[in-house]
């Protein structure tokens, strides 16, 4: 039986019939547009589909059933922390007082939201040991850009204009080097040590008067805590550079390690990972950024301020000239931040520490369960996720990690992240999270073990997987070579709709 609904859907455009759909908005007076100059008016109406509401509802309900989601099953996508998304969060964000508030409403009309944002900043400071937090960045990658632009502003303020390089380990997320480029820096990639950790000696050799920043993910994308982080941070600071922490893996270390206390100068939080805000099929996220004393003057504007009388307000344009400016319009992805606030309040300090304890315990248990069937290149205890490899299986049977991932779909699971981090051959990055029961972990381990056995006894069944999904593997080469990126009617090589 398929883990998702079986029924492919025609597009909205194929469902359209002229004359359908009405009754949402009163009709305007006939002369409504007469005061506009004819030259600015559209010659032909946009060819949007015409549908009645029941048709729209069936379309989207049926389409939704073609998705695998956390609400439908186990989704161990490493590096993405696919934990349960509490329903109270959704309720809270939709409260009319939050949802209906205009972002340019005067401060006195926005006291509830401003207080919530201020309290969330305080909570993130307590969690991270950072001196201050901005909630403005819209996602982790924008948080990275915020951090690196602040580092740039810091060096510029000091007249330190020779610093042109950002060092990243080869296990880093692709967003780190891409961010360095956007901020006008050159990326220097540092190989990892044999144990998967940062190679402190290689970093030391690369650090120098040209180094602006070092970007480190801790725990790393291999799911390992960087044991030599103290030494590395000392070396970075001795070289006059600053240290950025990619907080993607914060779910492993809540209450156990605070980047600010350890000496990181700046970090981002991924609230859709650590703090349970929904991943939304690709987004939205929110990427708050915490800073230590050094970067405090450069935080983006507007900050949320609490005045002496206990009222809250947004910083005014031009109020803090040292700021790097805005990363986006308005205060931030506030609706997402309401959800993160709700999650943090529901857990409190003790609950957040349990989150990490249980996430790390689950990952270690799962790693232990599959140890006999897959390579574990870095052994030892992991944090909230671990890397397994199908390199030996591939050597013996020709079955690849991609095949195993697709076969997992037949067993009812979403595949883990595959072929990342790039430094492990045939990598599977597996992150169970703290909200999955031991029964689910056991069932997933048994599926992985069974697939490893199938690779030996019946490799074709694995290589041709998935067998139960609504579509088989896709022709990605043609999709890229002859891109069809929008509906242009039933022409050319487009296929007729499936029903």
């Amino acid at each position, binding site marked *: 039986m398929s883990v998702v609904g079986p029924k492919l859907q025609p597009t909205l455009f194929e469902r359209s019939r002229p004359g359908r759909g009405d009754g949402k908005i009163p009709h305007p007076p006939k002369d409504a547009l007469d005061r506009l100059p004819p030259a600015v008016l559209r010659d032909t109406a946009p060819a949007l589909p015409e549908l009645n509401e029941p048709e729209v509802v069936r379309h989207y309900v049926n389409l939704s059933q073609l998705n695998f989601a956390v609400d439908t099953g186990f989704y161990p996508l490493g590096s993405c922390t696919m934990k349960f998304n509490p329903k109270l969060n959704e309720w809270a964000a939709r409260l009319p007082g939050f949802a209906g508030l*205009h972002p340019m409403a005067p401060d006195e*009309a926005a006291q509830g939201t401003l*207080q919530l944002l201020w309290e969330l900043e305080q909570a993130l400071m307590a969690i991270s040991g950072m001196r201050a937090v901005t909630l403005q960045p819209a996602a982790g990658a924008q948080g990275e850009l915020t951090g690196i632009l602040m580092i740039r502003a810091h060096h510029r303020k000091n007249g330190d204009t020779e610093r042109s390089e950002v060092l990243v380990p080869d296990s880093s997320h692709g967003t780190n080097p891409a961010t360095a480029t956007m901020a006008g820096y050159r990326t220097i990639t540092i190989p990892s040590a044999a144990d998967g950790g940062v190679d402190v000696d290689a970093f030391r050799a690369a650090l120098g008067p040209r180094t602006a920043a070092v970007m480190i993910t801790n725990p790393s994308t291999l799911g390992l805590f960087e044991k030599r982080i103290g030494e590395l941070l000392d070396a970075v600071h001795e070289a006059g550079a600053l240290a950025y922490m990619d907080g993607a893996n914060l779910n492993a270390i809540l209450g156990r390690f605070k980047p600010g206390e350890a000496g990181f100068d700046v970090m981002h939080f991924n609230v859709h990972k650590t703090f349970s805000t929904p991943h939304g099929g690709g987004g939205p996220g929110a990427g708050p950024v915490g800073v230590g004393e050094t970067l405090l003057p450069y935080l983006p504007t507007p900050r949320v301020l609490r005045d002496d009388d206990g009222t809250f307000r947004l910083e005014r344009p031009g109020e803090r000239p040292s700021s790097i400016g805005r990363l986006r319009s308005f205060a931030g992805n506030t609706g997402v931040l309401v959800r993160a606030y709700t999650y943090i309040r529901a857990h409190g300090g003790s609950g957040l520490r349990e989150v990490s304890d249980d996430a790390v315990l689950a990952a270690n248990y799962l790693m232990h369960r599959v140890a006999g069937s897959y390579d574990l290149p870095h052994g030892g205890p992991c944090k909230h996720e671990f890397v397994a490899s199908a390199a030996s299986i591939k050597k013996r049977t020709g079955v690849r990690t991609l095949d195993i991932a*697709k076969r997992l779909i037949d067993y009812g699971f979403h595949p883990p992240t595959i072929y990342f981090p790039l430094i492990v051959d045939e990598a599977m990055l597996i992150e169970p999270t703290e909200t999955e029961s031991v029964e689910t972990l056991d069932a997933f381990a048994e599926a992985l073990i069974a697939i490893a056995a199938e690779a030996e006894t019946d490799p074709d069944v694995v290589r041709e997987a998935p067998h139960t999904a609504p579509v088989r593997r896709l022709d990605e080469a043609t999709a890229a070579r002859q*891109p069809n990126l*929008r509906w242009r009617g039933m022409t050319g090589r487009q296929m007729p709709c499936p029903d």
Partner: protein
Amino acid sequence: MPYGPHTDGDRERMLAALGLDSVDALFADIPAELRASGLDLPDPEPELELAARLQALAGRNRTDVVSFLGAGVYRHWTPAAVDQLLLRGEWYTAYTPYQPEVSQGTLQSIYEYESLVAELLGLDVVSASHYDGAAAAAEAALMTCRQTRRERVLVSHAVHPHVRATMATYFGGGLELEEIPLVAEGEAAGTTDLAALQALLGDPDRPVAGVIAAQPNFYGLLEPMAELGDAAHAAGALFVAVVEPVSLAVLQPPGAYGADIAAGEGQPLGIAPQYGGPYLGILGATDALVRQIPGRLVGMTTDLDGQRAFVMTMRAREQDIRRDRAASNICTNQALLALAASIYLATIGPHGLRDVAATGVARAGELEKALAAAGAERLHRAPYFNEFAVRVPEARAVHRRLLDRGFLAGLVLADAEPDDPAVADALLVCATEVTTSDDIARFAAALQEELAGGSGMRSELAGAAR
């Protein structure tokens, strides 16, 4: 812990399998001197109490006012179906469709979004979404630099101040951003100064990558987009239109006046104001720029059996593949908001969207007449869409007093642009299909009273009372 599944027995069983007594052993790799000092946060709060706290906070916001505030974020009627469908967990608890076989719902919905918005824009390619209109416009500006291999971009002063500020931040890595001034007086006051643009484009030593203007502009005015675009192209620059999607039901689409790229804030398409986001960054371009467009793209293809299906494509532009040579660092986007916009467009339909746009135009005309009769004349004379500025002496004080009377009197322009004397003592007001004639009449009456009351006299009285 709320939401956690593990009983003490489960934990013991897992620890026993690992040969451990305590979970602390799994954190032994954190050096002792770097261990956290503790987690100083309030105690966990049960759902009942937390819900009450959240309701109290939400209740401290004043959303019960009659609002004429737009300034980039517009109130519209969202059909009830939109949120009902968004609340399906299959949509909002999935992630980026890395595994297309179990993500056809998200993939097809993104393809449909790309198609719907391309239709509105009159362009070929639309990305799967960016953070918001400002970030999308900043990415558009960077695209023009990559495509032309030039480093100077010109942006009209009448582009939303947050959009201009965001571009300036994104250009912090070394690119040059310059403003095109506005016409100061006469019929075209408040719109982009074409002659000034031509002068800026004329410097042969500083070639321009892109020219950026908004339609309607920040003041609600309609710009001569075709002329601005022609000037850009004549200088070898690309033309970027910053647009508001609902207006495109009736206004010329960017593709029709020669824009190479369009960016815009998608919030008006069924997305709640929610104090700034999550919104929807719209970014579209002509086919010629498809390899420069940042963010995810979904295309139509077939599976091994020849069945039609959808997949993320042209991934070689993206950070997880290209790392430091990617078109942008964007990873997480605003997919759920793109879905909201698609459901909105599908539900409201082409005729409904035209009604939304045209009703806004009509209501704004009604508002203009009522405010003029109340003594607040327009600041500009150029045609406007659904938003315009009016001259109000002591605008900030009047705005505050009107709030006390239950009216959100638009935006105090001096708050957004404190350094611009052209907009001192002015309010930016808008109307949409949710604005009623009764709202307009009551607002105009209240404003008239405030203006007639003599704000100077009031402040004297206030001074005497102190």
